[in-house]
């Protein structure tokens, strides 16, 4: 039989004798032989252990069991596992088991699995309801502590940066700035232009009823500059850059690269997190300005093509509507969102476990955390701007 051809082929080979199982009882009824014949290999469908149990249970007074393997035409682990199971069945039923009739190699393999020192895993009991609540509370406290520590370390790193003592590679900062900023221009531009158009359409449909189509420019301009430009930029960056940060730092955690930095006395907070925070805090406001411009262009496209306005009239109206305090609101929001995106990406990356699955979870969690906190920050900032009189 050609073993290689057999296992290199998904279909069981033709002309093979399928594996069979029978019990031959001796004349006195006390002993029996388990007759194994045919091809007992993994590429066949093998008899189940339950079949052997039924054969054994059908005879009452069995005291010993032998094996007859003379009819075997081939075997592998499929048979080894089966025989190991039969031996266990015999032990449970108090039947003596005599392995002499098995092929030599098989007996060796059975013995090998038994002879090795087996490590016993610690027994884990299922936690009670109270334990679970306790665990949850403790992990919540721990998570809060980790976030606080992260922000604390972040502020300290920022202070060392301001005083010029932070340890990081400046060339890497420029690469990060390019990745977070310039490389994001096409996607931020596309999304902003289209959202500007959508706002324009909605405004145009409503305002046309009052003959006030020129105010499309006010609505789109203010909406974009105060909030939408910064928000769109932040959400695109959360998916694009924040996720990348979490995956990068998470993989570094898995490869023990972060440990290697720590043992050198280099704080990962300064070396890895600080440049990423800086890159995003600098680039998000710039991208938001760009998003504002393209959003206004999207609105203008609708105002001109659908609303029948002239481009000049649209732009003059926009300029009249938008004040410096509106732009300031947008820029402050964008800087805050950028910090949130960078912080959640880096935090989840640094918290990452040590496996590939953990990197995936860290990435997902980074995007979710960023978007939740961006929306919360947007609400809080709106209230603050109103309170300090920036929005009037």
């Amino acid at each position, binding site marked *: *039989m*050609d*073993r*290689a*051809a057999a*296992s*290199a*082929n*998904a279909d069981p080979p033709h002309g093979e004798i399928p594996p069979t199982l029978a019990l031959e009882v001796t004349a006195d009824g006390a002993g029996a032989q388990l007759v194994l014949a045919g091809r007992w*290999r*993994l*590429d066949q*469908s*093998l008899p*189940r*252990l339950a079949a052997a149990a039924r054969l054994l249970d059908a005879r009452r007074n069995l005291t010993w069991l032998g094996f007859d393997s003379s009819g*075997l*035409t*081939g*075997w*592998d*682990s*499929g*048979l*080894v*596992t089966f025989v*190991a*199971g039969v031996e266990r069945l015999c032990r449970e039923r108090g039947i003596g088991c005599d392995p002499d009739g098995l*092929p*030599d*190699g*098989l007996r*060796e*393999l059975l013995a*090998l*699995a*038994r002879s*090795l*020192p*087996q*490590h*016993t*895993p610690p027994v884990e009991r299922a936690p009670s309801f109270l334990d679970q609540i306790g665990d949850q509370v403790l992990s919540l406290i721990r998570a809060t502590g980790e976030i606080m520590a992260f922000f604390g370390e972040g502020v300290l790193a920022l202070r060392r940066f301001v005083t010029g003592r932070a340890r990081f590679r400046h060339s890497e900062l420029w690469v990060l700035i390019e990745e977070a900023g310039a490389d994001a221009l096409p996607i931020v531009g596309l999304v902003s232009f289209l959202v500007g158009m959508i706002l324009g359409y909605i405004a145009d449909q409503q305002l046309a009823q009052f003959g006030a189509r020129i105010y499309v420019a006010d609505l789109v301009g203010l909406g974009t500059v105060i909030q939408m430009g910064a928000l769109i930029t932040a959400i695109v960056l959360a998916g694009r850059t924040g996720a990348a940060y979490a995956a990068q730092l998470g993989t570094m955690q898995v490869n023990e690269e972060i440990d290697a930095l720590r043992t050198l006395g280099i704080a990962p907070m300064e070396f890895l997190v600080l440049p990423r925070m800086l890159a995003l805090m600098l680039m998000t406001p710039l991208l938001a300005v760009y998003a504002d411009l393209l959003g206004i262009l999207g609105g203008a496209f609708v105002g001109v093509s659908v609303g029948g306005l002239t481009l000049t009239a649209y732009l003059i109206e926009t300029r009249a509507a938008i004040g410096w305090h509106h732009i300031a609101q947008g820029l402050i929001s964008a800087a805050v969102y950028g910090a949130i995106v960078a912080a959640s990406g880096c935090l989840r990356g640094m918290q990452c*476990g*040590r*496996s*590939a*699955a*953990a990197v995936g979870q860290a990435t997902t969690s980074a995007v979710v955390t960023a978007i939740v906190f961006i929306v919360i920050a947007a609400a809080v900032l709106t209230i603050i701007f109103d309170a300090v009189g920036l929005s009037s």
Partner: protein
Amino acid sequence: MNGGLPVRPAADTPHVCVQALAIGYDDTPVQQDLNFGIRRGDIFVIMGGSGCGKSTVMRCLTGLLPPLHGRVLVDGASLWEQPEDARTRLMRGNGVMYQSGALWSSMTLAENVALPLEQYTTLEHEQIRAIAEYKLALVGLAGFGDHYPSAISGGMRKRVGVARAMALDPDILYFDEPSAGLDPLSGRHLDELILKLRDSLGTTMVVITHDLDSIFTIADDAVFLDAESRSMLATGNPRELRDHSDVARVREFLNRGAP
């Protein structure tokens, strides 16, 4: 050949045959002019200093990296001249243990070992589970089936890697640095396991290692790869090479630096 009834076929029909092989990345050869045969049922060691391209050779033999020139014949079929699906079928006859285990981290140890069985056999769930437990017992990890790879040590991960490589009882088992990172006792257990598996199942074993104790314990045949000349310097039984090789560097390597 017949599992369990080991009948060695004639020694002149190699199981794997490497002909004028050159391997490397981006047209830069790491190793070239490789010619050797691996006999069926042999334990064949690929040895050489660090960075000589041992693992790269293994990647080519196991179907992961196409060669720059030359052929790899597995049972007479040229691995890299097959259409994709035929090559995949040939590759399924290989079991590979990777250097650091390469376990799938989102699956438990038992699921790691069971996955090949689930994909390529028609066995019942409980049979697969029993086989997976047996394979884990073979590497000394019975009862660890429900643990995740992240919860066990590096050495244990390596042994689970062996268990997974053996899942389908492959024709050829490849081991990439099996004893590296293991304590001496576990390393010896693994060597014994390799020998016993070969003796009882007749599996051809290809072992990449530079652990001399292991080489002299298990190897029937070996090839010595050299980083400087980017080619093989010698083939043959390591004990004979140690005492009688014409090449000084091979004798030096096998005698721990003493010429």
